[in-house]
């Protein structure tokens, strides 16, 4: 599903973000990318969706060489990969419904199909109907992250990337969100979670790719 072959990435100012990264994630897997802040976790996720370009190496996502994609092809790669952020990145001036439907509108879904899909995905992530018309800042942190996950999954991507999805949540909500990600994985989506939380990795007993100073150390 996702393959890295000797990938290197250096940011301007000679800051080495990743070096000699090679790994493979199979279809339907649940994988943690672990490591402290600055280890290169976010850069690795960004490389998968071509938000960054590697200096060297090759990256295959669903059989496509991401490093050689033309700019015009990037949107089509991203349609198959959902992305969840630590700070949710929800639009606070829009309702929960609008935050999710925005994705479907951007991807050209038919208008009559959108409400059905939004309600379906809200049920999957365990959000009640009452939140649909609310704006995100009125919701709890856990609910906001559920909305963000719903937004990432509404167009049924086969891969879900989550960058510190529980970083802003208390332990109770962290478990809720992780359980939800497990459920999503169980339903067939490949899930990659970047986290610095070693307890989380220990608790969920999934394969982990530990990063330290831009290198895989496990």
């Amino acid at each position, binding site marked *: 599903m996702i393959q890295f072959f000797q990938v290197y990435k250096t940011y301007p100012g000679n800051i080495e973000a990743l070096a000699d990264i090679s790994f493979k994630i199979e279809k339907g897997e649940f994988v943690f990318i672990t490591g402290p802040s600055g280890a290169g976790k976010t850069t690795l996720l960004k490389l998968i969706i071509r938000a960054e370009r590697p200096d060297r190496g090759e990256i295959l996502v669903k059989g496509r060489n991401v490093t050689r994609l033309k700019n015009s092809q990037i949107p089509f790669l991203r*349609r198959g990969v959902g992305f969840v952020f630590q700070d949710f*990145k929800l*639009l606070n001036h829009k309702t929960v419904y609008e935050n999710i439907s925005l*994705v479907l509108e951007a991807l050209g879904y038919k208008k009559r199909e959108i409400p059905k899909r939004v309600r379906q995905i809200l049920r999957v992530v365990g959000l009640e109907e009452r939140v649909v018309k609310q704006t995100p800042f009125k919701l709890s942190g856990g609910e906001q992250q559920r909305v963000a996950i719903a937004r990432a999954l509404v167009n049924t991507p086969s891969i879900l990337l989550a960058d510190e999805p529980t970083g802003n949540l208390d332990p109770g909500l962290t478990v809720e969100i992780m359980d939800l990600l497990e459920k999503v994985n169980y339903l067939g989506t490949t899930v990659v979670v970047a986290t610095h939380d070693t307890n989380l990795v220990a608790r969920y007993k999934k394969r982990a790719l530990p990063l330290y100073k831009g290198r895989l150390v496990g």
Partner: protein
Amino acid sequence: MKETGLTHLLSMGTIATSFFLFSSFLLLSINFGTFLETWEKKVQIILYLKDGVGEKRALQLKRELQKREGIKEVRYISKRKAMESFKRDLAGYGGVLEGLKEEIFPASLEIKLGEAFRTPERIRALAARLKKIKEAEEVQYGGIWLERLSLFLYILRWGAWILGAILVIIVLSVTANTIRLTLYNKREEIEIMRLVGATEAFVKFPFYLAGGLQGLLGAGGSLLLLFFLFHLFSLKISPYLSIYFGQLRLSFLPPDLIAEVLGVGVASGLMGGILSLRKAAGI
């Protein structure tokens, strides 16, 4: 979002003001051009004959002149006719005119010109040639005024185009800055749309549309305001125009020019949008 709305409104106001100035210049030059054309139609050359020139020679001169290129019609005005005309024009002054003798009025030839010969240069050239006729005492024509008015029209037209060029720059920069601000306000939305796989065309189209629409509304608003003011002005001034210039009517910008002004508005607004998106490509 309210701030963005206000910014859009302010920038549309600026665009409308700029277009108002430009369209006013166009309107002025069009009506002045019509005025000049009417004036040109009335232009004639009057050749005053020396005192000793008899009627026979004057009529012979008339026939000779009528054969010349560019001369449409020549009318002989005898001393008597000149006096009668003078008295008719000043009929209200009754007593003062009594005792006037026809000898003090010069006989003249009124020369009307062909349409192609009513330009200031040609009138001046013809007048110069007529002055050389030995029977000619004096040659008069409204050429000096015509030349001055033509120069004024020329300046007005150039002024409109220079203003038009400045206007395009204003519209470009105002639209580009407004859209840049909107882009900045919507950067999160744009980032999300790009992350979920929206195409660049889908992301950018609303901004191009906003630019074009801003230009269109700015230009359209200015034309509406100009039309309203023109209507008020022409209502007040029309009675005076008909007194002094007979058939002369004020006219608003013709449809093709209105379409051009609106087109310039849309195009420059659109360009502003494109420029702002290019500069803010990183957002």
